[in-house]
């Protein structure tokens, strides 16, 4: 059994709303898999189904070779789950929170495991600070530390870096890559494109279904999206006019450059010809361009 996650045709509805609608996914061991998609696209529900917190309506599969419907209790012991909202005890110190986790997972070398993890995550000097007094970035670190304390084989991280500054995010992802290098599989949801680019593979969800998946390069290359970029003056006015043009999905100004994107190359050419004062050149799409294109697509 090579895949850390292997699920097929998962369904989950709340009332009449289909949150996850026929989702199948295979994540090989040791991979960092990025979960992307708009708010409400089913990322959190999928992650919760993987660790047994939510029961799927139908479908099934395995997580670390264990059945997600039957073996939820065993899966929990081997998975590190980091919730979207900070879910440790704010009235406990960093060390007390970690000690609690170590004790609940019945680690024999509790004190040692807590000390090692704090050293590794740089939490040692904040050991006796109350978790509630930590800044956002440090809270995320504490949460990640708590997730890896019991040496899980799979990390399920639900938007772990939401609201955290760029430097802290960078460091967080360095840690994730270190962990992956040690053989840990990581499934992480995010809204940040720079983070998506650091994943071995990205999976894009929309309305509970996978729309696109692959390496970041394959996703950008396979999107069929065409982009033109122009520099010059009067870009804001031109952007407004171009947004109304046929075949132009988006027209946005980035500093001194105007970029338009669309699928229909001919239509884009027609649009650029209509603005003779600007000098246009074709540029390769970025992940962000692709996702904005996917987000704007009717479901």
């Amino acid at each position, binding site marked *: 059994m090579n895949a850390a996650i292997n699920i097929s045709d998962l369904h989950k509805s709340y009332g009449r709303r289909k949150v996850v609608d026929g989702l199948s996914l295979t994540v090989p061991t040791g991979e960092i898999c990025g979960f992307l998609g708009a708010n409400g696209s089913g990322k959190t529900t999928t992650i919760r189904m993987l660790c047994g917190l*939510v029961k799927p309506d139908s479908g099934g599969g395995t997580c670390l070779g264990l059945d997600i419907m039957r073996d939820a209790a065993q899966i929990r012991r081997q998975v590190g789950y980091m*919730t979207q909202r900070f879910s*440790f*005890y704010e009235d406990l110190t960093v060390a*007390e929170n970690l000690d609690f986790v170590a004790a609940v*997972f019945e680690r024999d070398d509790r004190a040692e495991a807590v000390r090692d993890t704090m050293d590794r995550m740089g939490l040692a000097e904040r050991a006796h600070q109350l978790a509630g007094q930590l800044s956002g970035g440090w809270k995320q670190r504490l949460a990640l530390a708590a997730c890896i304390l019991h040496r899980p084989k799979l990390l399920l991280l639900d938007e772990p870096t939401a609201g955290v500054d760029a430097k802290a995010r960078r460091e967080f992802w360095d840690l994730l890559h270190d962990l992956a290098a040690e053989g840990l599989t990581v499934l992480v949801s995010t809204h940040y494109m720079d983070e998506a680019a650091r994943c071995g593979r990205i999976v894009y969800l929309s309305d509970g279904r996978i729309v696109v998946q692959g390496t970041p390069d394959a996703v950008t290359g396979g999107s069929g999206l065409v982009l033109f970029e122009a520099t010059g003056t009067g870009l804001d006015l031109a952007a407004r006019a171009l947004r109304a043009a046929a075949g132009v999905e988006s027209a946005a100004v980035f500093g001194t450059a105007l970029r338009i994107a669309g699928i229909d190359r001919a239509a884009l050419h027609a649009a650029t010809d209509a603005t003779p004062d600007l000098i246009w050149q074709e540029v390769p799409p970025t992940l962000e361009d692709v996702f904005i294109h996917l987000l704007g697509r009717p479901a």
Partner: protein
Amino acid sequence: MIGGFSFRRFLAVLRKEWIQVRRDPLTLQMIIALPVMQLFLFGFAINTDPKHLPAGLLSVDHSRYERSIVAALQNTGYYEIRTLDSEAEAERGLAQGQLLFVINMPAGFDRAVDRGERPMILMDADATDPAAIGGATAALAALTTALDRDLPASLRSTPAIAPFRFALHPRYNPEQLTVLNIVPGLICVVLTISTMFVTTLSITRETERGTMENLLAMPVRPIEVMLAKVIPYIVIGYGQVMLIMVIAAIVFGLPLRGEISWLWLALGLFIASNLALGITFSTIARNQMQAIQMAQFTLLPSLLLSGFMFPFQGMPRWAQWAGEILPITHALRIVRGVLLKGNGIAEILPELWPIALFTLVVGVIAMRSYRETLD
């Protein structure tokens, strides 16, 4: 329910709960301030035999006999009498609650007495609260001899020679002090409030703060979480009992007789029953607000149907049945029985099993309604 009970995981949660209880200043204040405050407040305030009730005197003559009767009324301790000027004032006083009684002395009272006409004195009473005037009206019966010293022998009240007599022997509380009835009851009420309300919040707090999701994702069993959340409050509950008993003994002169060790055991079970109920509310409620409302919903019957406020025997049969279900009803009997009557295990046992049964049933409901998923 896969996997069994793990003592280590239970200890882990217990340790965490204990730290949280210690760090929450509000909980700590409630634990100490609540029993002390309530004990002083209710211990001194609640009185089912009120004295010095305001009464008005309506009279035209202000005669000699009238003075004797007024003095006799005052001497019962129940009446605080002032003279009124008009019937309008009397009506207003009764309506506004400034007077509970109006004594209407008929004109020519002395003469009527002297002639042996046995005149009536009309007592208007505000009977909206029967308990408030009960003692005062009962005292009237004994006052028919009030004029005996002023009257010639022929007019004195002649005590009928009764063929038999009752001798009342007020046992356990010979002076019939309300406080000796209230304070043991307060032990139970304070325990109910402090333990049930605190645990009611315990699980909903985790849900609201988002920590529940994490707890569920970890390999802890419901029984481990629940026991760990309950046990700190058993310790705290015992601390409160000790505090209340010491204050009650010193300040209110509550006798501590009977088998105190059995009382401790019984109170432990009573605390457990409250905690079981609290944690059940906590698992059923979606948020802290709902949980508090559920707790309040049970608090009122606990006060009213248990015999704490009103005599249990005075309630209709169906209300007594409802009262019998509540652990506090039995706890009240145990505490009053042990402290006032000096009861032992033989009298405690019949009251103990209903509490145990309640705890068991409610505990099972709590376990069953503990949601292990977020669905």
